[in-house]
């Protein structure tokens, strides 16, 4: 069953990359290459499913497996909550050797019951892991039974680590929502301006940079899947009138299936970058109006966008003198690449290149057009090559995720985290200003002068001149 599901997910008609493929390529599926044994790899499917669902803040997230599957991932993402904190608690069945011999189903049931009785959450998500999948624990059956006996939704998330990559896990998490959650609660207050946001996890509180914009337009977020969400919001998400899909690689299947099942149209967008934020806002407003919302919404959206853009550019201008002419290298996945490029170029920075690893072909074209002649697009850059580029001074700053942090630092190049472990929110108009502010802070930090300055003595350890201020 899992195999079937995976195959289905690997051939996603809603995915632009997939659509561009030939019939033969399509048949091989998008994960055909698999992970290269012996090479450094990212997270597993379990991790992907967990991070996709864990921002449902009032639920218990129970991991059925040996201790460390939960232990290693416990609270490792800064997905912020505006209230409930239950999601930050680590729950696991902590399987031991005897459980593996005799089967862990009974222990799982007891764990579910214990969590239910102690915390009485609106729902419990149960995550399958490699070990429990291998020994054949029927997690779905246990969840079904527990749900019946305890009288609360207990949702199996079948994404054992060996199923594939982290991205596949994101999608399997989406499948669990489709199979067991969305559509199970009827909201009493459905309205014409209700939308869903898919693929937004409220990392560093980014959702909160978007919400005020929507609020000002009178648009209600029925459910954010899953950043800062409550179970009942997700369960009643099927009554939204339109959806915004962010971080497209993760939730595209969910968006497509919600459109098929409940006729919720979606716009693929991004809140990184000024132009993108505007486009995305306009896009979702258009969908709402098409479905019967007050047409006046369009005019109000245009006015809001114009005002916010003016405000953002005015604030960005002040950074130009310190950043103009400095060279940046972007190394991140997906749509973030080109949306950041346009803002950096606007304040006079040079972008010498951007990665387009996880981007669709459309994204790649946009990035190429934006970069013009001075920059190039890359797929993966091997660490050694990136080190060489930075060492040779081809870029003044690297914007990337934690995995390439030390490539930059060891080559004495300023680095800024723009991936999930970052602590600053970069979404929306305010977020872009914050990003540029952070670039300014890092790039113009005096530490780099000290870091780059060679030891003030020669190869034989004989001192050169002392710094003048001492």
């Amino acid at each position, binding site marked *: 069953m899992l195999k079937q599901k995976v195959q289905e997910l690997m051939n996603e008609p809603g995915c632009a990359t997939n659509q561009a493929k030939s019939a033969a390529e399509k048949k091989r599926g998008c994960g055909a290459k698999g992970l290269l044994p012996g090479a450094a790899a990212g997270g597993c499917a379990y991790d992907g499913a967990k991070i996709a669902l864990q921002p449902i803040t009032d639920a218990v997230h129970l991991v059925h497996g040996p201790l460390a599957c939960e232990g290693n991932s416990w609270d490792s993402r800064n997905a912020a*909550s505006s209230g409930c*904190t239950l999601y930050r608690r680590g729950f696991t069945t902590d399987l031991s050797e005897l459980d593996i011999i005799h089967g862990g189903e009974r222990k799982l049931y007891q764990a579910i019951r214990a969590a239910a009785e102690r915390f009485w959450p609106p729902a419990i998500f149960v995550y399958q892991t490699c070990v429990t999948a291998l020994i054949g624990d029927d997690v779905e059956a246990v969840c079904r039974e527990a749900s019946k006996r305890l009288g609360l939704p207990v949702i199996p998330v079948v994404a054992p680590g060996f199923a594939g990559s982290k991205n596949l896990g994101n999608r399997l998490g989406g499948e669990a929502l489709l199979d067991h959650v969305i559509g199970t609660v009827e909201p009493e207050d459905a309205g014409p301006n209700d939308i869903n946001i898919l693929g937004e996890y409220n990392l560093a509180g980014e959702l909160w940079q978007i919400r005020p914009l929507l609020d000002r337009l009178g648009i209600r977020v029925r459910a954010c899947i899953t950043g800062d969400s409550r179970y009942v919001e997700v369960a009643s998400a099927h009554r939204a009138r339109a959806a915004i899909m962010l971080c497209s690689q993760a939730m595209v299947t969910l968006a497509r299936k919600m459109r098929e099942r409940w006729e919720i149209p979606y716009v693929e967008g991004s809140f990184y970058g000024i132009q993108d934020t505007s486009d995305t806002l306009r896009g979702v407003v258009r969908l709402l109006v098409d479905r019967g919302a007050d047409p006046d919404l369009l005019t109000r959206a245009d006015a809001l966008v114009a005002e916010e853009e003016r405000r953002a550019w005015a604030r960005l201008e002040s950074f130009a003198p310190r950043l103009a002419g400095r060279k940046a290298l972007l190394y991140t996945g997906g749509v973030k690449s080109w949306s950041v490029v346009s803002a950096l170029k606007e304040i006079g920075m040079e972008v010498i290149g951007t990665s387009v690893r996880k981007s669709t072909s459309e994204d790649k074209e946009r990035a190429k057009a934006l970069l013009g002649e001075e920059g190039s697009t890359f797929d993966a850059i091997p660490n050694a090559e990136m080190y060489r580029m930075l060492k040779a001074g081809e870029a003044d700053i690297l914007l990337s995720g934690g995995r390439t942090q030390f490539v930059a630092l060891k080559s004495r190049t300023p680095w800024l985290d723009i991936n999930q472990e970052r*602590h600053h929110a970069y979404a929306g108009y305010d977020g872009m200003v914050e990003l540029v502010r952070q670039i300014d802070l890092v790039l113009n930090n005096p*530490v780099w002068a000290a870091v780059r300055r060679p030891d*003030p*003595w020669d190869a034989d350890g004989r*001192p050169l001149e002392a*710094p003048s201020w*001492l």
Partner: protein
Amino acid sequence: MPQSADKVKDHISLFQEPEYKELFQFKKENYECRATEDEVANQLEYTKTWEYREKNFARQHAVINPPRACQPLGAVFAAAGFEGCMPYVHGSQGCAAYFRSHLSRHFKDASVCVSDSMTEDGAVFGGLNNLVEGLQNCNQLYKPKMIAISTTCMAEVIGDDLSAFIATAKEKEAIPADLPTPFAHTPSFVGSHLTGYDNMIKGVLNYFWDREAQRERKANDKINIIPGFDGYAPANNRELKRYLDLMGVDYTLICDVSDTFDSPTDGTYKIYYGGTTLDDGRNAINAKATLSLQEWSTEKTLEYIAGKGQEVAALNSPFGLSGTDAFFMTIAKLTGKPIPEAIEVERGRLVDAIADSIHWLHGKRVAVFGDPDYTYGMTAFLLELGMEPVHVLCSNGSGEWEEKARALLASSPYGAGGQVWRGKDLWHMRSLLFTEPVDLLIGSSYGKYLEKDTGTPLIRLAFPIFDRHHHHRFPTFGYQGALRILVEILDRVFEVADASSDISYDLTR
């Protein structure tokens, strides 16, 4: 009853019991003649304003919460750094008790010091008899190899002449003529503990080089290092020695308290433990050069040493990357020895750590208070980290310090908003923190009241540290020490981040 023999509460919880709260309330209402809560609150708010700050800075005749100590404390510290030496305070015994408790509370170790307990008679007739008798008793009771004599205000006010009195004591055979008895006049009403430190170090050298016998200087290849008055001396001096050994430098530390104030517990009590040997002190005259790590704590000493024909150099509490670089380059220049690779590797680790953490430090506003060299060295390191020293306050700095500190701030864009406050106290600092707030305060334990009052997080990195244990056992000097300072600052930044928001209470930072 809030407590019984079976359930004894400590004072942290005991006085939270309703019985006590009621008692306090009753006293407050009936006996304290207090202003109303509103009046108190209004006055408190007023003291946070610019208007009050201006009045506060116009204050001329009172010092409130002074961040400095007096001369004899420095002299006792200096004396403690020599082998078998008994610090002897000529004057009131109460002062000597203060010095002992001050040092013991900071170092969490025994502090040895005697006084000749002058009384009213002494004040009227002069302290000669007390000194003669005191030296005799001290020698018989504690068998020191050297007695280093300093003075308190009382002896200075009546004008006792130490040189003549000590000579008299030796003539009267109260103590053997060959017992080394260096001395320094250390009136508390002049300068600070650093002046006393300077005076006593000079006094010891002067005794060895001129008074005991007229020594001829025969230059050799050794160098002398004067670490200065340093609350972290136990660990810092050991670190200093490790570095010098790594470089293969032949050296003498002039005044080394690393063992004196950090002796192991091994079942025996030693009155004297460690310190610069007296012969090393005598032979220090032959060194080719002397380096002081605290310029403004050793001005007179360096002048005296230079007069003997030695090359002298001084740094200003070299903290951080550039500070430590400057230390090594000075040593290399003075000795001609190369800087070994092992040190370069340590340097690289510090650079690595700094680069890892800058995001959390950049642009953080800091206030620093303490001794002149300390505030200077710390400010230099903060600038290097991209932090912004906003208030640099030193109650015992000279005009030269002020000038140099201003130049330091002006040398970096991060010092552009920085202000130098000479001769100011911690009540001034309170006004500064309310009117021009900062993110962090760096100083001694005395900063804790400011922390509570103004809400500015305090980082304890200077003498005295009474309310935290063992800080002096880990160095602040050198590349390792810079790493430690970096970690202390970072820890505080992270604690503040964790405490200030549930939403951003992140596991990974």
